[in-house]
């Protein structure tokens, strides 16, 4: 019998064009493009007189700069210029663009899956580190720099160094009510650290992963990069196939092509966990809701816990922890549920999908946002927005006192009008709590959509399980 292989190796091997142990040229099946990391790549093509090799494999949308109050009204000249540059480049190079108002615009990692662009067993890249999101379908998906964007546009391939190692993350047990995929991935990052996945591709598996919806799996894979991993993926199963076939996904295969695809996709799995280079096990049944306290995604505690005291932090990390505490304006030992919030942000490529909005709406229904707290609910795409309307979720949000916005990256990163002012503190469903990430001087705490909604109601971080019990 041949050596057992991992899902990651299988996808890697079928995209190997040429190379050796030190360097492989991989074929890229899908290239997603947004306005921020592409202008210099298109300039490079123009300078060299090169074309896009496979424009039909390339899909673009504006997301980072799009204002979520009125998508069409980009007042900031530099933002407007960047979005207009994307439009011009897509037209010149023959690339499909889902612009604002098209009905298909949205955060690039939300629209790829919902349009059926993202498929199992494919390679997907984008000039954006959260491309790991698409690994939820059993695709090998990772973020690249702008020079690499240019390389993929020109050649539909990408040079990679030695094949990354595989790291199996087994999640056993069952999540308690009130806990979500976000709590799983925050707990994983807390366990392995922000450099724990460097040089690796993570594969998530086990009963707690199989039990997740595609939206939940995307949340988990999305934050693989926050553990330093090159990518994260999950073997496709019936939940994946239903997602791709039970709803109209325009670019997904149909008819005979679908039958062939399904036969192929069912073979996409790791032969045995022994095939992983590394492995850890996490028990989902012991988890409680997670909240980050610091300025790195592994600075995370339980909602029932407190801001760490310095003597609880290993000596080597104390300097970083002190800087983080100072930036966050937190006293060591403060119970997490005594920390007040100013802004609640529900959205982003991590948690801006329909299931995330349903979860937040479930908590907010019949309740009111605490006075003095501003709540932004931002759908991840125009399609998510339409679906939320069809389900009446927007009514629940506005009745509670939240702002219901238009699709875009919004407050995940300070590139559009939605941002924190210095000293403001957020409960955010996004992916990074770095200094200044949501605006210079802003203080970010990462949480699940349910926990964000609970903080909106309480005005402080609070254990959503207590709200759901009543």
């Amino acid at each position: 019998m041949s050596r057992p292989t991992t899902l990651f190796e299988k996808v890697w091997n079928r995209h190997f064009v040429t190379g050796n142990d030190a360097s492989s040229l991989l074929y890229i099946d899908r290239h997603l493009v947004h306005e921020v990391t592409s202008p210099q790549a298109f300039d490079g093509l123009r300078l060299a007189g090169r074309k896009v090799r496979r424009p039909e494999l390339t899909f673009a949308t504006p997301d980072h700069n799009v204002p979520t109050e009125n998508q069409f009204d980009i007042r900031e000249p530099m933002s407007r210029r960047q979005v207009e540059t994307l439009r011009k480049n897509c037209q010149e190079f023959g690339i499909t663009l889902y612009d604002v108002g098209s009905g298909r615009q949205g955060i690039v990692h939300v629209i790829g899956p919902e349009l059926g662009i993202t498929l199992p067993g494919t390679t997907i890249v984008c000039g954006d580190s959260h491309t790991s999101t698409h690994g939820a379908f059993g695709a090998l998906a990772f973020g690249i720099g702008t020079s690499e964007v240019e390389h993929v546009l020109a050649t539909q391939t990408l040079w990679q160094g030695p094949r990354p190692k595989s790291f199996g993350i087994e999640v056993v047990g069952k999540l308690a009510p009130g806990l979500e995929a976000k709590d799983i991935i925050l707990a994983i990052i807390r366990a392995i650290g922000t450099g724990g996945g460097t040089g690796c591709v993570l594969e998530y598996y086990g009963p707690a992963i199989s039990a997740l919806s595609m939206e939940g799996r995307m949340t988990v894979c999305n934050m693989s990069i926050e553990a330093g991993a090159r990518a994260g993926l999950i073997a496709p199963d019936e939940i994946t196939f239903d997602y791709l076939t039970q709803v109209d996904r325009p670019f997904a295969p149909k008819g005979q092509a679908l039958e062939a695809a399904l036969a192929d996709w069912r073979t996409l799995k790791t032969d045995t966990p022994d095939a992983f280079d590394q492995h850890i096990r996490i028990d989902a049944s012991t988890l409680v809701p997670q909240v980050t306290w610091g300025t790195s995604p592994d600075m995370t505690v339980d909602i029932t816990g407190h801001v760490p005291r310095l003597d609880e932090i290993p000596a080597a990390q104390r300097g970083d922890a002190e800087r983080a505490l100072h930036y966050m304006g937190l006293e060591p030992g403060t119970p997490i549920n005594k920390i007040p919030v100013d802004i609640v942000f529900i959205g982003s490529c991590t948690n801006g999908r329909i299931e995330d909005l349903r979860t937040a709406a479930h908590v907010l229904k019949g309740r009111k946002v605490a006075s003095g707290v501003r709540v932004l609910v931002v759908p991840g795409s125009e399609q998510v927005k339409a679906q939320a309307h069809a389900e009446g979720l927007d009514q629940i949000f506005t009745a509670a006192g939240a702002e219901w916005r238009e699709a875009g990256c919004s407050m995940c990163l300070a590139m559009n009008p939605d941002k924190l002012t210095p000293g403001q503190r957020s409960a955010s469903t996004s992916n990074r709590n770095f200094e200044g990430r949501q605006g210079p001087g802003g203080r970010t705490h990462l949480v699940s959509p349910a926990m964000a909604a609970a903080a909106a109601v309480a005005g402080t971080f609070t254990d959503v399980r207590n709200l759901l019990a009543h």
Partner: protein
Amino acid sequence: MEAFTTHRGHVALLDWTDVNTDLIIPARYLKRIERTGYGPLLFADKRYVAGGAPEVDTPEQQGAYEATFPLNNPHFKGASILVVGKNFGCGSSREHAVWAVSQAGYRVLIAPGKHEGFADIFEQNSFNNGLLPIELPEADWRAIAGAVAAHPTLEATVNLEASTITVHQPEGKSTSYSFEIPSEQRKRLLAGLDAIAETLLIADSISRHEQSAPAWVTPAAS
């Protein structure tokens, strides 16, 4: 891409761990569509006093430097080799972070720990811009970081062909350290190769791969 063979320069030190790309260059500066102008934006929210960071469209108009930021040590002025802490460049894929480091005058980064020194995408972006990211064994890294802390005017020579860093101590003696760079990356840096031009030479292999792909991989018509 500019070739990298040998470089001698002053060495600066920023020994924080997990320095992320938002810190290296905040997202608001990513609205630029040019490939230049990023040097003054490096560490903008740390390097300048409050309110002193440049606006995105006028990077050349800067406020005063924040004295407490380590790289504002006057002895580090003009340094072209930067010693950094573990997991440097984590976070976003923005190549602007590498552009900022390069355009601020650095040609070499030195971090501790094999496979731990740099975040993967940042490391790849560095190679693609002729910025040499060196991961040293921790003991060697500590020796160099310690030497820079003690003598902030220290110079070093980085020789990619020989894969050595030679630290020139002020009293005249020097110490050398070996490093490893993946063979392909080393070859490309030494020759200053244009990766796209190289790949286009083997376009036939790419076409063969495309012809062998199953039909379902091509996106269905929208």
